[in-house]
Structures are given as C-alpha cells and as structure tokens.
C-alpha cells in the first residue's frame, strides 16, 4: 500500500537518509526502530512531504507522494502524528481535534469522528474545553493521536508516541495503537521503545545513520543477537 523506494533526503548539504526502501501493507503495524538522530523521524517527514526527498519515489495506493501537496497527502489518508505532539497549546482540546479534520474528505465526518475519538479517549471528553497546553503529557499524546484519527487516516504514522511518558501510559498508548489497528487502520510507528513495540508489531525495520540495516518480523528482531546486544550494550 505504502511503498518507499530508494529514497534519499537531506537538509542543504547535509544528507540524512540514504537509499531507504521499505513497504507497508494494508492492516499492518510496521515499526521503524533506531537511535536518536538515526533518521527515523526524517522518514516520516519525507513521506508527508514536509521535507522533499532528493531522490527516489514514495507511492501510496499508486499516488506519487513526492509530487503531492501536503494537503493532498492528508486527503489521501496518510496522516502524520509528529514527535513531541506539536499541539496548538492555546487552543482547546476540541479545537485541536478539529484541526485534524481540515481536509475535504475528513470534514464531513467531523462530528462522528469527534464522538469516535471521545469514545476511544474518554478522558479527552472530560477536558474538551481545556487548553491543550495545560494537559498532562499523557493526555497531550492522546490529543495528538486523536487529532491524527480525526483526519480519517488509512495509514497513521506515529512518531515516538511514548516520548516522556510514564511506563503505564506508554502501555496505554500502545494499546490504543493496537486498537486503532484493529479498526483497519494501517500503522507506521517510529519508536525507541524496542521491546514493547517489537512485541506487538507485524514487521520492523532498524534504521542506523539514515540507512535501513535490518528487517524482519517483530519476533525475529527480538530474538536477534545484534539487536539485543545493541540495546543492552553488553
């Protein structure tokens, strides 16, 4: 469904991604794992065409994303939930959610989507008029994910949703991701939290220095000596 084909990307003279190729199929949960600065987020940013690829193609259901406007990409259901949440702090929770549904294809369903999100995150319903900036970290992450869902995604790209959250909340976020996946939404997840994500994902890619170095199912990678060693450092 989503196909990344020999993509290079860089900022100015600084090349960040080198010959990245991978695929995400309908209904999958795919994880990109790697250290800070390895280029995981850059992959997502390139897919959303916030930063243009310098080489290669990205296609989604036949649509060439490297040529598409950011809004067009969103309208086609490729939704990016950014690292660090990037909420509109001086807007209410509900307004933040509404901001997720600006595209022509999501707008007509705005009411239902809101209800759907509030059902998924009952805590957000309680806080719908509260300013997003005053929420706790976990709640903010919920808003970010819910905002992504408001856009009626086919593929939801989550960038480090566990960032800075207490373990219990991390658990909750991952459960939500799985729940969303159950609804038929494909998930592309970027995480440092290897063990937990590998445990529930379908497939994973390891990114190092802007290159894909390993790939396999979650379980394969969990049992991989290289991955284990790299993570434990012993």
């Amino acid at each position: 469904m989503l196909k990344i084909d020999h993509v290079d990307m860089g900022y100015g003279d600084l090349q960040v991604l080198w010959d990245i190729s991978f695929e995400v199929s309908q209904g999958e949960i795919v994880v990109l794992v790697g250290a800070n600065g390895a280029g995981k987020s850059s992959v997502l940013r390139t897919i959303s065409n916030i930063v243009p690829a310098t080489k290669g193609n990205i296609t989604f259901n036949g649509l060439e994303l490297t040529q598409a406007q950011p809004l067009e990409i969103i309208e086609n259901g490729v939704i990016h939930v950014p690292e660090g949440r990037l909420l509109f702090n001086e807007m209410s929770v509900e307004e933040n959610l509404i901001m997720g549904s600006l595209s022509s294809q999501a707008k007509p369903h705005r009411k239902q989507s809101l209800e759907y999100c509030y059902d998924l995150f009952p805590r957000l319903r309680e806080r719908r008029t509260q300013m997003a900036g005053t929420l706790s970290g976990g709640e903010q992450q919920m808003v970010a994910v819910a905002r992504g869902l408001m856009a009626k995604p086919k593929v939801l790209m989550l960038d480090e949703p566990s960032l800075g959250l207490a373990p219990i909340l991390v658990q909750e976020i991952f459960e939500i991701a799985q729940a969303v996946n159950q609804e038929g939404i494909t998930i592309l997840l970027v995480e440092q939290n290897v063990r937990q994500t590998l445990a529930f994902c379908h497939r994973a890619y390891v990114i190092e220095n802007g290159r894909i170095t390993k790939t396999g199912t979650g379980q394969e990678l969990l049992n991989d000596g290289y991955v284990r060693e790299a993570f434990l450092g012993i």
Partner: protein
Amino acid sequence: MSILKIDNLTKRFGGLTAVDHVSLEVNEGEILGLIGPNGSGKTTIFNLINSYYPVSSGTITFNGHDITHMPTNRIAKLGIGRTFQVVKPLKRLSVIENIMVGAFAREKTFSGARKVATEVLEFCHLDGVAKMKAGSLPIAGRKRLEIAKALATRPLLLLLDETAAGLNPTELVQAISIIKNIRTELGITIVIVEHIMRVIMTISDRIHAIAQGATIAEGTPAEVSVDPATIAAYLGSDFKAENRPDA
C-alpha cells in the same frame, strides 16, 4: 574527591516535574554516564547545572562553590563547559573564530586566544576546516566544534550532551577517541549523556540512570546493566534499540 555535587535537585515546569529529587556526585577525573529514555530529564539536568533554567529546589555545588543560582556565564568561568544536543555553532564565524570565542574566556589577547584555538583545533581534528564558516560544516564537524568550543574555555568539568548522535561509524570512532583523550590527555572530568549504549557503556566509569526525572540506578556499567531495578523499571519497559558501529 567530588568535583560536582548535586543534592535533591528538582525542577518543575508548571505541573510537570521534569527532574525529581535527583542527587548525584561526580568525582574528579572520572567519566560519568547519564542515561535514561528520551524525555526523562537528562538534558534538563544539564540545563539546571549551568543555570539555563532556574532550579526549583535542591543545591548544586561545583568545586566548593554553590552554583545553584549563579548566572550561566559565571558557571562557565568557574570551569563547567558544556555542549548542546542541538548544536549551537556561531554560524557566520569561521571554525577557528568559534573556538577563539571560547578561548577568550581565559585569554585576554588575540594572539593568545588564537594559540589556544589552534591547539584545540588540532585536538578535535578540525584543523582542516579552520577557515570554513561554522554554518556550513557537516554534522560531524559541528558536533566536534561543539566540543572544541567548550574545551577552549579550559573547563574542569565538561558536560557532553549527545555528541555522538547522528554520526556514522567512522565519525563515531573518532568522537569516542576524542572524548577519551579529553580525560586522559587534558585531565578533564566528564559527564556524558548518550543514547548509544555501546558508547556510554564503554567509556563511562560510572553510570547514573534516570527515568521520569528520578534516579533509578547508579553504579558501574556492569552493575547498572544487571541491576534488577534498572532492568525492571528502566530497561524492561523502556527497551532501547541501539546504534552500533558495524564491526
């Protein structure tokens, strides 16, 4: 002999407690690794040590001085150098000029600063790009420049914030050797924050692990990596994928 002593350090941003009663000591001449998942408060601790943020409570003592509420520049003058995770090169200045700015902290004259800068340039393998504008350096160069600037201030203690992130294997090896040299050749104490486990586990004498802003384990790398509390509370739930140089 402890050179830096942090006692019950706490930092609150609004309702969020970013650093929660952290106490740690750094001994003279050692390399202390500070680990923890993204957003666990490592950089915040650095920012508290050199007063970028005002401390909510607790004390920080450096070399016998209470530096808890001292302005950043005076802390730097006292001898704490630091690098930034998001590098802060002085973009429109050349590499050597960048380092000279640091060198002026101890040198009064132009020629003196230039001499110090030249030494540091060599030490950080930047001599080839001395005349280049710092803004046009590639990432590895910027990371090294970050260290070079801090070194030029002749610190007693160096706080390194993710100086290895985003480097390729060759660059990584070079960075590790520079960091090791800083201690062995210059005798500077180092506190290092790093995500690349291999790096931190190999160069650190001791490890201090935090999660959610609070200390969860402390000890030698070997101890920390087998510490049940660490594995359960930290490594267990916040499993980390690591980068490693291709051997």
